[in-house]
């Protein structure tokens, strides 16, 4: 079995939800029929009740670790201490997937608590490739790298983002996490074609999809979409998700919700919508294969 086949076997090709602290006890008490759960790794590198809850949940559900703090794109290098803590967490949790972002957060010793944009240059590609390689070596497994949501373009950024990701995959053997909401948000903010972006991503390395809600803000008369994970997935993002499924096939999909976290039922209902589209995608994919 190849590594990709092994991962595909372990990760449900179904919808999961981001596990957030307010829902842990309810999930433990009611064991809702959800295919899998994803947590932010940084919330669990300590100990205590949070880790105890996760240890109980992982007995019954496949769990994925989603990192927000490795700062893969920092020019000054990775935080070796954080990488060690992440490796120790992975050993405990045995996640089905581990993912991070195409972004940076650390400069001058300050952690800026944001997934900040990178200019897509050969220099950035070298730095990213080196860091993804270091992370995969330290963790002893493949990392999925997620496309960011963007609010600005750099003057000098000659490599289109999907090409940059494809080249990162080629150089490091990493996988990709395709965040459909991020594509939608960036496409609006930076005026590019979201569907063309999906088409430009390499098909094979994409092993997970994220969907989430976003906000529409007014900035000096211009509508800027903000990736705030604070509402239901918008219809236009579901549409782009269906388009992405047609390209990537039936793969693990996660509904993220991080601000104004709703009742668990609302998240489960969102996951049902994704499952419905996943089911149709499978039907569509098998039709296409037959044709």
């Amino acid at each position: 079995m190849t590594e990709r086949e092994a991962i595909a076997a372990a990760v449900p090709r179904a919808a999961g939800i981001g596990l957030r602290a307010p829902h842990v006890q309810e999930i433990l008490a009611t064991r809702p029929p959800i295919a899998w759960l994803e947590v932010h790794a940084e919330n669990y590198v300590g100990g205590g009740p949070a880790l105890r809850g996760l240890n109980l949940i992982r007995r019954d559900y496949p769990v994925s670790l989603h990192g927000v703090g490795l700062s893969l794109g920092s020019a000054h290098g990775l935080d070796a201490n954080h990488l060690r803590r992440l490796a120790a967490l992975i050993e405990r949790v045995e996640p089905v997937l581990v993912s991070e972002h195409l972004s940076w957060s650390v400069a001058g010793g300050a952690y800026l608590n944001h997934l900040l944009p990178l200019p897509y240059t050969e220099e950035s590609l070298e730095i990213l490739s080196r860091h993804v390689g270091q992370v995969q070596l330290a963790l002893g497994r493949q990392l999925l790298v997620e496309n960011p949501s963007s609010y600005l373009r750099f003057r000098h950024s000659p490599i289109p983002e999907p090409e940059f990701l494809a080249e990162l995959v080629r150089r490091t053997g990493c996988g990709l996490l395709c965040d459909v909401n991020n594509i939608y948000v960036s496409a609006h903010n930076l005026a590019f074609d979201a569907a063309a972006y999906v088409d430009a991503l390499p098909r094979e390395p994409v092993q997970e999809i994220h969907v989430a809600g976003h906000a529409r803000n007014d900035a000096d008369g211009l509508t800027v979409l903000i990736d705030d994970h604070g509402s239901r997935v918008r219809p236009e993002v579901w549409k782009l998700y269906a388009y992405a499924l047609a390209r990537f096939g039936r793969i693990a999909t996660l509904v993220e919700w991080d601000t104004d976290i709703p009742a668990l039922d609302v998240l489960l209902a969102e996951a049902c919508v994704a499952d419905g589209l996943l089911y149709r995608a499978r039907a569509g994919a098998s039709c296409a294969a037959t044709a």
Partner: protein
Amino acid sequence: MLPLRELQAAFETALRGGPAASAAAEILGDGLAPEARLAIYRHHVFTTLTAALEAIYPVVCRLVHEQFFRYAADQYVRAYPPSGPCLFEYGNSFPTFLADFEPCKHLPYLPDVARLEWALNCATHAEESAALDGSALLRLPTEDLPRLTLRLQPSLALLSSPWPIDQIWHVNQPGADSDALVDLASGGVYLEVRQSEDDSVFRTLDPATHAFRDALSGGACLAEAADIAFEMDGVFDVPQALRNLFAEQLPVDYAVSVPSPEDA
């Protein structure tokens, strides 16, 4: 075009509220001022870090009102951004910052309330160890007991204040009686913080027990800790204090300290 390291340094300056010109020169406006695009990122940095502080310091936030808290948090984030990515570890210097923060000097108890909240936060995220079985000590020769040192549960924190910060904390919990008054002249407290099943809890200790546990958790041997407790309470019951520690599953490891040459 700047090398990535310099570009990130320019962003760091701008996103921490400093001059944005160098970062702005690197980006396209696309219908907005480049600074306005940077402001989208800066806004996120400040609001999420303020929210992280609010989550750790809810009582402080209530005591000073939300609007003032946001102002204080803004000043704090500018001066002391996080040094690592785990937000439950951010804000350890906030109590000291508040102590020196001129606009809240009229609330002298505020830094101590913040210290209590920080201790509760640390206890919630500490990794507890398996408790030491007290019978392990039975094997020790009696003459070694004075030099016994105990490592206590990582979540344990001992703090004291000249202000009734325990009462202040309780009356500022969600659902507490909003008419409850705290007599600030009612005196100080000695507190012990520990992890609980769901998060963390604190309770008051008598001064001698507090001093005894504080000395032990700081690495003092049993004889030294007992001496410190006796200063507070001439009839402090050391064997009972030791039994209580084990009953509360606080010790996780022990050692017998080697006598220093001058003691020999």
